[in-house]
């Protein structure tokens, strides 16, 4: 009973925070709402008997991704407090698309018979680690290569030399026309 109550509470927090992520005009606040949504998801994982995933979620997402995002906002933010425009002109179409998706998938979920066998107890952290290094060893190694490639790619992109001091806001088309193709 308490578990389902906690789950409902976490779900409500996640939903509200997610709506604020897409609605907030201030980017820093949007990032912080995302942090709340991810923390609520971690709570949901804990309710769902996945304590290890809850911990990993807090460590990598809230500790890593959100910090990176805040760096991104602050480094590139204009001095206006990172208030950004939300594209109101396309928002009706965007609402239509997202509600269409919701109706499609939600309808499918509601019609499907989701009854199934009683599941085995969820894996403990030790079992999770064992399957990661035994059954899924190849995927594990490929993931490490992917992470390495991502780090190298990020460094190469961020270190790329600038053609001029700063191109300013004269528009990308003009800048690209002068520079020729991007290296």
């Amino acid at each position, binding site marked *: 009973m308490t578990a*389902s109550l906690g789950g*409902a509470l976490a*779900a409500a927090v*996640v*939903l509200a925070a*997610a*709506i604020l*992520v*897409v609605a907030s005009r201030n980017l820093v606040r*949007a990032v912080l709402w*995302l942090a709340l949504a*991810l923390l609520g*998801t971690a709570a*949901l994982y804990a309710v*769902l*008997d*996945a304590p290890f*995933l809850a911990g*990993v*979620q807090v460590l*990598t*997402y809230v500790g890593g*991704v959100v910090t*990176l*995002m805040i760096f*991104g*906002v602050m*480094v*590139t933010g*204009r001095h206006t407090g990172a208030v*950004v*425009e*939300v*594209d109101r002109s*396309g928002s009706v179409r*965007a609402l239509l*698309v*997202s509600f269409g*998706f919701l109706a499609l*998938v939600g309808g499918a*979920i*509601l019609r499907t018979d989701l009854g199934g*066998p009683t*599941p085995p107890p969820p894996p403990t952290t030790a079992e*999770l680690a064992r399957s990661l290094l035994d059954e899924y060893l190849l995927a594990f190694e490929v*993931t490490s290569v*992917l*992470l390495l490639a*991502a*780090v190298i*790619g*990020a460094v190469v*992109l*961020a270190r790329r030399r*600038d053609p001029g001091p700063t*191109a*300013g806001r004269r*528009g*990308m*088309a003009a800048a690209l026309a002068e520079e020729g193709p991007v290296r």
Partner: protein
Amino acid sequence: MMLRELLLLATVLFSIGIYGVLTRRHAVALLLSIELMANAANIAFVAFATLRGGPGEVLVLFALAITVSEVAVGLALVMLLYRRYGDTVLDLAREARR
């Protein structure tokens, strides 16, 4: 919590992410919405893993690693965009494609 409610929650979250991707013009805000969508998928994985069995939890670990690398490369691109053009609004990128 039953499986159906959790899957509906994940679907609603994913739709919110779609709305964000379609309305936001700032590159970092776009990344935030993509994060929401990835998170929704992870919730569905964990819901299935706990309530119906299967390797969902391991898959979520891999998905986390992939999302993190995506954010790293995405933010590097944002920095590049900003250093070159002094802005991170994606309309400029759209303009350049013409």
